């Protein structure tokens, strides 16, 4: 098993290098003539107006938070699913209770209008 993780570690290094080397190469090969108009930030072809921050809507954060809750739940469920053969009925019901609590929570959030985009 150690060699499997070794593969992943080496693969990580290689996969970080594989796009990096062509990007560096292209940087060397390509022309480099920056001027202020080319380098200016693109805003539909006109000059930038205002600071570069946007009206941050709370919806982004809410979707991220909902995703976090379900993500943690799912990570808990993976070992439960793997150990399914040796689980007693109690174990299966405990897992299903876990999922059910979050299912009801999703429905409650839906009712309260959390999952809207507007």
């Amino acid at each position, binding site marked *: 098993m150690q060699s499997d993780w070794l593969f992943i570690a080496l693969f990580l290094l290689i996969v970080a290098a594989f796009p990096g080397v062509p990007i560096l190469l292209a940087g060397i090969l390509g022309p480099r003539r920056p001027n202020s108009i080319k380098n200016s930030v693109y805003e539909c072809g006109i000059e930038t107006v205002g600071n570069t921050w946007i009206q*941050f809507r709370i919806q982004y954060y809410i979707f991220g938070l909902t995703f976090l809750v379900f993500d943690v739940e799912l990570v808990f469920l993976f070992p*439960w699913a793997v150990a399914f053969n040796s689980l007693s009925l109690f174990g299966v019901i405990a897992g299903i209770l876990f999922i059910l609590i979050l299912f009801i929570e999703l429905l409650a959030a839906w009712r309260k209008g959390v999952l809207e985009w507007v």
Partner: protein
Amino acid sequence: MALSQIIFLVIAAATLVAALLVVISRNLVHSALWLIATLFGVAIFYGFLSAGFFAVAQVVIYIGAIAILFIFSVMLTRRLMQDNSPQINRGWPLALLLAILFFGGVLGMYNTWPEFAAMAPEMAAEANPLEQLGLALVSPNAYVLPFELASILLVAAMIGAIYLAWEKK
């Protein structure tokens, strides 16, 4: 020194440097990015300890969800994302002394624990750690109560999200 030890020291040093940069960086988003590097280092440590599941779970939850939430919330603060106040205040010698004392104390306390320098016990070859973990999570004399309480905790987090959306309205 074995090769694995050298690699471990290098990664440990990198993680510590990244953790330091989280606190030192002036730009908030840079801090968040260094935090991601630190969390990734921790995931690699889990891999060293042959806890593959935790390494991957760390990446999924911390880097995939929590770090993204950090970046979102950093961008939610509408003030300037650059912190131009002086980095070091006048009480820094006392702070340094306290930090060293604290670290030394904790290290000394750990030294009195006999298992501090012990190696992890070798698991039986056919023991499937994932299956053991799954069994432990739902067996009544192990961790089923914290398991269910965790789901209630997640419900509490969702209620936080509901509250946020409520406020907006």
